[in-house]
């Protein structure tokens, strides 16, 4: 389960970002996944839905996935071409000396969040609690 490992990495990352931004709840997470990243979006989504059930900040969030097109560059004729259609051999000159420019990404683009209580309010709440005690 390749996707499961990536989902765990992703959740860890999002939780860290949420913690440093004092977020109370996450509404959505937007990922950008390269066309030839070997990630199968459907599997990723299934793993995600399973994994977020245990995550307080993420359990009601939605996952949005954007595709990044795969583009390969040919060092022989200096042209770019779509990777999925032609693979590693350049369709213009037939050269084998090619490398992937984009398409292998897994990026967290952005998260939509609800902000947590302000610091002042937090302090007030804490004081109130102390008074109660």
């Amino acid at each position: 389960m390749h996707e499961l490992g990536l989902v765990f990495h992703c959740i860890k990352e999002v939780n860290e970002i949420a913690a440093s931004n004092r977020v109370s709840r996450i509404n959505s997470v937007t990922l950008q996944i390269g066309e030839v990243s070997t990630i199968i979006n459907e599997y990723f989504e299934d793993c995600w839905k399973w994994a977020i059930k245990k995550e307080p900040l993420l359990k009601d969030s939605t996952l949005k996935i954007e595709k990044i097109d795969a583009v390969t560059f040919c060092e022989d004729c200096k042209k770019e071409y779509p990777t999925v259609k032609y693979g590693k051999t350049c369709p213009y000159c037939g050269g084998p000396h090619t490398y992937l420019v984009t398409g292998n990404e897994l990026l967290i683009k952005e998260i939509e969040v609800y902000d947590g209580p302000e610091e002042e309010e937090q302090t007030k709440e804490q004081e109130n609690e102390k008074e109660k005690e």
Partner: protein
Amino acid sequence: MDEVRVIEIKKSIFEDNDRDADNLRADLKKEGVFLLNLMSSPGSGKTTTLIKTINMIKDHLNVAVMEADIDSDVDAKKILAATGVQSIQLHTGGMCHLDAEMTKQGLDNLDLKNVDLAILENVGNLVCPAEFDTGSSKNCMILSVPEGHDKPLKYPLMFSICDLVLVNKIDVMPYFDFDLELCKQYIHMRNPKATVIPICAKTGEGIDQFAKWLEDQVKAWKEG
């Protein structure tokens, strides 16, 4: 309070792992420990190759082994019984690869004092382990003859990140349509710098060359 705010991140999931891996590599360099990440398909002969090789080098080098699998501890026990070197089993909990953090946790459970060569036997898989830098000094993979000589074309990333490719089970080459020269050509198409050593873990053929490669690498790592 209930307004939605967007936080822009634009961060790669692999970024943290790459940083952890670089830190781990730097720590190991300081300690003089060479870490080999050994990868392959299931059943290609990783454990048998390791046993033969470790028994050849253990008088010159202090070796420790981490066996990573989804479940069971058969490999760690086998290594210990057959070589006597320090050996632990890591469980990945269903995951198909090891990342730098998991590798570090494994190393923390070894006694690295005086260890020259730590070997990580990664989960048997030609896809995911290639995507996660473990923090290893060098990457090595085993391709066995029954898998076919076209594997470098089918799993390009694995072959492109390996410094050494061992072609194992060459004793059965006559029974399979395996073309060693073509295989080398395919490997070098994906990775011109890769060293290729044909071996047979069962008969011991070529293991001396792998042992020599390891000894040279460890020496260079400690000196560099």
